């Protein structure tokens, strides 16, 4: 609601050239869309998963928490990434179910093989968990090129869950995908959880004196 109110504040008080006509014609629709998204995003997290069993969810949560760990700032666990992946597997990432169905037992077997006393990934120490994931990452192929879109054709369980974790950490919190809870992922990367901004934007433009023609070309350039 706070975000919704601040948007409304921006619309009614912000002066960066939003036309009165635009506000009059678009405000109602936009507010209703925004508040709908907010409600969806902020309704108490249902305990029920749509795809995972509670047991599976605990393992997935533990894996995501090593991909983006909790440090002095929030990690995948606080962002509720497991809920994002759970919903992803019944919506846009249905095709990746197989990776999880086959990948999770393989991961558990690997955990047990590397650390015989460890019965499941979530019970291992963080150091052990990192070693288990490193052994998977080493198998999963190299670095991709600069993507135009998030890769959906990830080739292995680790690569799949890595891309899903990052996506669930940084997705627009106003979307209905159950990721980036309370915008904590954006907070970590320094993105304000807003969709309207005014200059100055950053360190280097805050004292910009305004455009001046290049003195070298003063003779060539005329306005």
């Amino acid at each position, binding site marked *: 609601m706070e975000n919704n109110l601040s948007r409304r504040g921006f619309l009614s008080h912000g002066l960066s050239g939003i036309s009165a006509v635009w506000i009059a014609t678009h405000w109602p629709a936009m507010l209703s869309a925004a508040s709908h998204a907010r409600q969806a995003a902020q309704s108490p997290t249902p305990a029920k998963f749509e795809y995972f069993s509670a047991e599976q969810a605990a393992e997935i949560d533990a894996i995501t928490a090593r991909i983006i760990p909790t*440090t002095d700032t929030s990690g995948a666990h606080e962002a509720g990434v497991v809920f994002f992946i759970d919903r992803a597997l019944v919506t846009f990432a249905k095709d990746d179910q197989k990776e999880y169905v086959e990948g999770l037992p393989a991961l558990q077997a690997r955990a047990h093989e590397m650390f015989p006393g460890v019965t499941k990934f979530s019970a291992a120490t963080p150091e052990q968990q990192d070693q288990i994931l490193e052994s998977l990452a080493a198998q999963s192929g190299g670095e991709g090129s600069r993507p135009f879109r*998030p890769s959906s054709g990830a080739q292995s369980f680790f690569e799949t869950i*890595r891309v899903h974790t990052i996506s669930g950490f940084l997705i*627009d919190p106003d979307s209905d995908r159950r990721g980036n809870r309370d915008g904590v992922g954006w907070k970590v990367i*320094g*993105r304000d959880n807003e969709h309207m901004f005014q200059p100055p934007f*950053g360190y280097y433009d805050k004292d910009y004196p305004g455009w001046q023609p290049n003195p070298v070309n003063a003779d*060539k350039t005329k306005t």
Partner: protein
Amino acid sequence: MTLDQPKYKTTDEVDFVVIGSGAAGGIIAKELSENGFRVVVLEQGPYLTEKDFVHDEIKVLNQDLLTNHPDLQPNTFRKTPDEKAKRQRAVAYGRLVGGTSTHFTANFWRFHEIDFHERSKVGAVAGANLADWPITYADLEPYYTKVEWEIGVSGLAGASPFDPPRSKPYPMPPLPVKSGGVIFERAGRKLGWNPFPAPMAILSQPRPGRSACINCGFCLGFACEVGAKSSSLAAAIPMAEKTGRCEIRPNSYVHRIELDANGRATGAVYFDAQRNVQRQKAKAVVVCANGAETPRLLLLSANKQFPDGLANSSGIVGKNLMFNSGALSVGVFEHPLNDYKGFAVSRILHDFYELDSDKVGFHGGGGLDARFDQTPINFALGGLPPGTPRWGKGFKDALSHNFTRTVEIFCHGTSLPVENNSFSLDPDVKDAWGLPALRMTYKDHPDDVKLSNWLNARAAELLQAAGAQKQWSFPAGEQEFSVHLLGTCRMGNDPKTSVINPDHQTHDVKNLFLCDGSSLVTSGRGQPTMTIEALAFRAGDRIRALAKRGDLTV
């Protein structure tokens, strides 16, 4: 969508059917309907509106909310004509009312004089099919001005010493400078270059029914939820609809243009949303389907008279495909830039627009821009320096440090026309409607790659002069994918070497016109949409003049 849109019957013979509602189609529909003609615009994609334009990266980028979907409309690719093409995504374009103009970066450079008579000026370039345009910059200048004023372009006239002459200033001041733009401007000047405020098709001041840019930061790849981006959806189409003579008909996938016994086009055949075949009758047809789908439609429309494709007596429909070459350098700075806020580009430079090929050893030229066009997920997956850990604490630390401190220097340049580079119909792969898939054949001219790497070395110099704490470059390789789709039905006076005449009329079929990226004879230096829109305004004028003269019986 306005209420006063007429609903024509397919059996009504309207004056014009316009195929495609993007940068060119929107403007042509506006120009023709404002001049009293009855127009039906057939758009293959849906009619989305501002409430649909969300910031969900999965929905928009990953699921192709706005773009052609590779499962429904597969592409195939090969480098040379002797190879068998493999299925892979080769093109992306906006597939919705407004077309690619809804989700583009909105860099709006005019072409310069050189772009129209390059062949005469520099002579032949080995391995390239370089030609002069049949029109000049001066012919197009009034229409560039029309685009700036009617569609809405922000910028500062006279700020670049390399700008071609103009008859009027911009209608509104440039967008605010971003930190990346300030860094670019200071470092560029230090090196003796001339950075200047980027001309952008994004409003810096409101217009009736449209907001000024609110700097939301989801710009490239996303459509604007406040109408600030001057897409055809936000600008031209509402004006066309307002005439009461123009119907925008979405979900209409045109796959054939038919001729009557006299060799005149009779309208367009399309699949409606239920995939039923419909025929819209019209006195004349204007194809604005983009540089890939326009030649594909002509090839799909082959008939007895034109066995190699409609209006293809020259045999060059689909050929001389150009992309614009590109390369990228990235820098990370000490303090937060927060360039994630706002549109992508605030400063550019054109010092290298016309390079001396005797000195540099290749043909072409280009421009640089300072940009940040990456949304959070995209950035996390592809925006960190090479060698950064891909998960764990090291990854998280780099991500939280770099997201606000990164700026990219993008190099845009010439793409030389090469006859083998082309769009054609794939002999095996079909789309979801059973039509032959779009096949791309493309291998960069070696000069394009040399140019990109040369420009990228300048970008790296600039980042160094700017004091980047870390910087890296992606060397230019041979491209296999593009969003700039140019030159495939080129304009010219000679019917043997061109598809359309300077009036955008096909040499072969008198009431068939083509106007979009396919009309371009040269690629310019990286930003084609401004020129496509200027051509569309001019084509509107020319077609109207022909119609009045009675050549068209409309």
